């Protein structure tokens, strides 16, 4: 069988469709910037039929291709292509960038020859019509004409502005370069608005402005048109007036000559060009570590001081490459290296490890004679004291933090705030002797500091020195008459004193104290109400004045449940026993009827007050005693929506009303089973009552609530649930080891094994961190020094210390380890007194 017979028969081609399809393809190439393909397509089309639109398309394709070549520096090829364009497409040769390319290629004579011909033709025109394009072409030649020789210039007619203003333009450029202001102004004044050099005038003015007023320079350069013949000089200035990464982006788009001019204008060394190119190629959201790598490759062009600064800034974000190889670029000092490493570790969240590096940095900085270094040492110590690990939940500084602040004062005692923080810390730890010493020292340096005097008042009050507090407060109020904090402090202190006198039956002394308090307290309703209530209790029982004052006192509190709660809280702080009978009597004096049925508004009013008031725990005191049953009965009733119920539960929780919280939360769980917050509150209430989570069901419910909180991205609730779990089982591993009659030797050795395994697993990081928290840095550092870099010995001694600490309190004799101690027993270290773990931190065996 013949193969030819199997060939498919070609479909007949429709001649009418070919040119149209080809034209569409050609247009597509043109629009997509594929100029060579467009040229070929249009040439084929023109062979079929020289339609005007196809000729125009071919001309555009030629122009596009020529521009692409010129942009690549192939101007000769671009010129040839342009000539072909004029010949084939019948377009004007002397249009667009043609003259510009000729000038750039050194063919100025050719351009000038053309100009003179055109000028002659224009003057010989019978209708005397001016040639509009001639002036534009002349202006286009202006930049190139500044560099041509005299012979070329002779081709220009004497009356040409190109020739007349050329010396002025050259003089202006020279005056600008040698910073001769007068000569520059004189030269620029000669260049008129009609001159082909007018854009050079605007440009030079902008370049001068750039040095003194950058905003004005931006405005000036914006007035130079983008298609100006002087754009080659305008472009570098346009790039430098931009800011940040935009400046870099524009700079990178310039050609090499323009880039060098831009670097000069910026004041940037020309040798930095490769570095800037590398940065320009980077993405704006580059990761810090990648930025470090990029600088590392290019930093050799930077001066040492700047390279060091860049290193200091970047190294903490590239721990391995930066901090581990400090001399990779720049020349950071040992202290700088230590600071960078400390910051790097701190950024990672390893506080204990960071603290070790910061302390090393402090030692280095402290040994320097440079004032700045000593200031740095002080700041590092203050920074460490501000770390969360040294602050309790209430924001009280622990003893280690206080130690840092004390040491920082050795290097710089000029920060009043540090003195105040130290005194506050000692006062709140109950060390009033140290607090007073600190105050004396602080007040010597800052006798007129309101913060220091305010702290002096608080310290005096804490020590019961009312007279001293009052004297100091008066001094403070002379300096700061509107200091309400001190006024309230003193007023409340007098009221507390008055309460003691009332309890002791000394009514006259109580009245005096109340009058004293009146002089300090302001006119705020809450303060006045408290004052009037105490005043009422100085009057004899049943007297009309007592009733009047008591009723006056509760009026600003709104009467009802909220006012009654406040009244009973005050009463329970003063009177020895406030049972239901006496509570009702006191409430009755104030005109509050506790038997009245509670409305939802009463509960909301109470919640609002409870949200504002701090928790006061007094044994046996119950400010809700008359209403407790009524409140409990309201829990299952659907009076409130879910949000309001959450608020009510929070109020009960904040004031440790565990019974009411359990009832409200349990009822709310039934109504809104998808709300994990009610599960938390119900379990937390039972935990508050029993001291532990007793029921397995509560565990399971709480775990499900935690999952739900995580799913809902409720991080606050999640952390609250975690804290509850932790509070329920603070030492999970330790419990197994502890026994009432001491820790058996086997358990101690098993524990040693566990510790050794954990050291093998992570190199001892976690163990060291816990040990540091437990024993304090001083002890750990002492151990490190004594072991002199021997890690094995260091960890062995640390384990010995931990085991000794564990065994010690239970009276078990400590047995040296037999598992890894193959060397003779090491000499015991000197332990002056292990630093107690900071408040809020767990023990060594928590994990």
């Amino acid at each position, binding site marked *: 069988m013949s193969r030819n017979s199997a060939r498919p028969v070609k479909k007949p081609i429709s001649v009418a469709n070919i040119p149209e399809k080809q034209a569409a393809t050609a247009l597509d190439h043109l629009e997509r910037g594929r100029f060579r393909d467009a040229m070929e397509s249009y040439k084929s089309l023109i062979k079929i039929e020289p339609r005007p639109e196809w000729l125009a398309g071919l001309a555009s394709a030629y122009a596009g291709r020529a521009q692409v070549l010129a942009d690549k520096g192939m101007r000769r090829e671009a010129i040839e292509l342009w000539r072909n364009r004029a010949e084939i497409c019948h377009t004007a040769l002397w249009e667009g960038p043609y003259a510009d390319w000729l000038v750039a290629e050194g063919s100025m004579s050719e351009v000038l020859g053309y100009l003179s011909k055109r000028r002659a033709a224009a003057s010989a025109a019978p209708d005397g019509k001016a040639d509009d394009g001639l002036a534009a072409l002349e202006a286009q030649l202006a*930049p190139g004409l500044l560099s041509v020789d005299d012979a070329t210039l002779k081709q220009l007619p004497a009356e040409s502005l190109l020739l007349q203003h050329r010396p002025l333009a050259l003089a202006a450029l020279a005056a600008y370069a040698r910073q001769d202001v007068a000569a520059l102004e004189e030269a620029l004044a000669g260049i008129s608005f009609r001159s082909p050099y007018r854009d050079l005038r605007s440009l030079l003015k902008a370049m001068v402005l750039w040095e003194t007023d950058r905003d004005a320079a931006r405005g000036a350069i914006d007035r130079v048109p983008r298609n100006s013949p002087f754009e080659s000089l305008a472009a570098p200035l346009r790039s430098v007036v931009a800011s940040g990464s935009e400046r870099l982006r524009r700079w990178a788009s310039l050609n090499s000559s323009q880039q*060098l001019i831009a670097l000069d204008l910026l004041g940037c060394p020309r040798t930095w060009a490769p570095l800037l190119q590398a940065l320009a190629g980077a993405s*704006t959201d580059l990761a810090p570590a990648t930025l470090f790598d990029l600088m590392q490759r290019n930093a050799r062009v930077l001066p040492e001081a700047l390279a060091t600064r860049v290193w200091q800034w*970047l190294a903490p974000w590239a721990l391995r490459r930066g901090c581990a190889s400090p001399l990779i670029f720049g020349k950071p000092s040992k202290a700088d290296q230590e600071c960078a490493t400390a910051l790097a570790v701190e950024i990672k969240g390893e506080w204990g490890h960071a603290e070790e590096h910061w302390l090393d940095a402090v030692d280095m900085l402290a040994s320097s004679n440079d004032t700045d270094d000593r200031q740095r040492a002080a700041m590092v110590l203050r920074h460490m004291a501000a770390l969360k690990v040294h602050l309790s939940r209430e924001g009280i500084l622990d003893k280690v933090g206080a130690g840092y602040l004390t040491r920082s004062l050795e290097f710089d005692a000029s920060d009043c705030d540090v003195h105040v923080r130290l005194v506050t810390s000692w006062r709140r730890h109950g060390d009033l002797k140290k607090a007073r010493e600190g105050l004396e020292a602080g007040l010597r340096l800052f006798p007129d500091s309101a913060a220091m005097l305010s702290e002096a008042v608080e310290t005096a009050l804490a020590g019961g020195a009312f007279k001293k507090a009052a004297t100091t407060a008066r001094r403070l109020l002379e300096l700061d008459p509107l200091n309400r904090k001190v006024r309230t402090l003193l007023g409340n202190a007098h009221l507390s004193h008055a309460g003691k006198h009332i309890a002791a039956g000394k009514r006259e002394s109580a009245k005096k104290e109340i009058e004293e308090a009146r002089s300090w307290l302001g006119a705020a309703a809450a303060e006045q109400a408290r004052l009037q209530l105490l005043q009422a209790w100085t009057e004899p029982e049943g007297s009309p004045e007592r009733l009047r004052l008591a009723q006056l006192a509760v009026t600003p509190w709104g009467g009802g449940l909220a006012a009654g709660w406040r009244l009973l809280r005050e009463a329970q702080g003063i009177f020895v026993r406030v049972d239901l009978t006496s509570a009702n009597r006191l409430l009755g004096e104030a005109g509050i009827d506790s038997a009245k049925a509670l409305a939802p508004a009463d509960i909301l009013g109470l919640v609002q007050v409870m949200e504002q008031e701090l928790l006061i725990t007094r044994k046996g005191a119950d400010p809700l005693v008359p209403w407790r049953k009524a409140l409990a009965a309201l829990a299952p009733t659907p009076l409130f929506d879910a949000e309001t119920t959450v608020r009510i539960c929070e109020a009960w929780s904040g004031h440790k009303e565990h019974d009411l919280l359990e009832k409200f939360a349990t009822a709310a769980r039934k109504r809104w089973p998808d709300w994990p917050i009610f599960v938390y509150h119900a379990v937390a209430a039972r935990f508050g009552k029993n001291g532990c989570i007793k029921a397995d069901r509560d565990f399971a419910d709480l775990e499900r609530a935690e999952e739900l909180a995580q799913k809902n991205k409720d991080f606050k609730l999640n952390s609250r649930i975690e804290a509850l779990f932790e509070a329920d089982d603070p030492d999970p591993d330790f419990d197994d080891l502890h026994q009432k009659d001491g820790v058996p030797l086997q358990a101690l050795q098993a524990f040693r094994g566990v510790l050794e395994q954990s050291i093998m697993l992570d190199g001892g990081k976690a163990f060291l961190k816990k040990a540091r928290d437990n024993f304090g840095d001083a002890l750990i550092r002492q151990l490190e020094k004594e072991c002199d870099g021997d890690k094995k010995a260091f960890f062995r001694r640390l384990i010995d210390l931990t085991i000794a600490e564990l065994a010690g309190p239970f009276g078990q004799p400590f047995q040296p380890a037999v598992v890894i101690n193959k060397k003779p027993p090491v000499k015991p270290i000197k332990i002056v007194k292990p630093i107690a773990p900071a408040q809020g931190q767990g023990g060594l065996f928590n994990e």
Partner: protein
Amino acid sequence: MLGIARGADDAAVRAAYLAAVRLHPPERDADRFAAVRRAFDAVSTARLRLDHELFNPEPPTLDGLLHLLQSDFSPRRPETASLLRLLKGGQDGR
């Protein structure tokens, strides 16, 4: 952000801040202004500058690096020959 040189005093920092505010006024560029204000608040006094240098928790950015590199620049004028060479290259500068 403010483009201040190392060792700049309080007055120089304030001047740089005011210049930055002129460039990014709050009514026109609120985000940028807020960033400028934050930067000024972080370095307005010598103590704060030292604090920023030691404990800056902000990750470095390309913009920040450029500011750091350019902080000590002082503009210089190109030579006449360089300018003429550039102008001779034609409108596109080549």
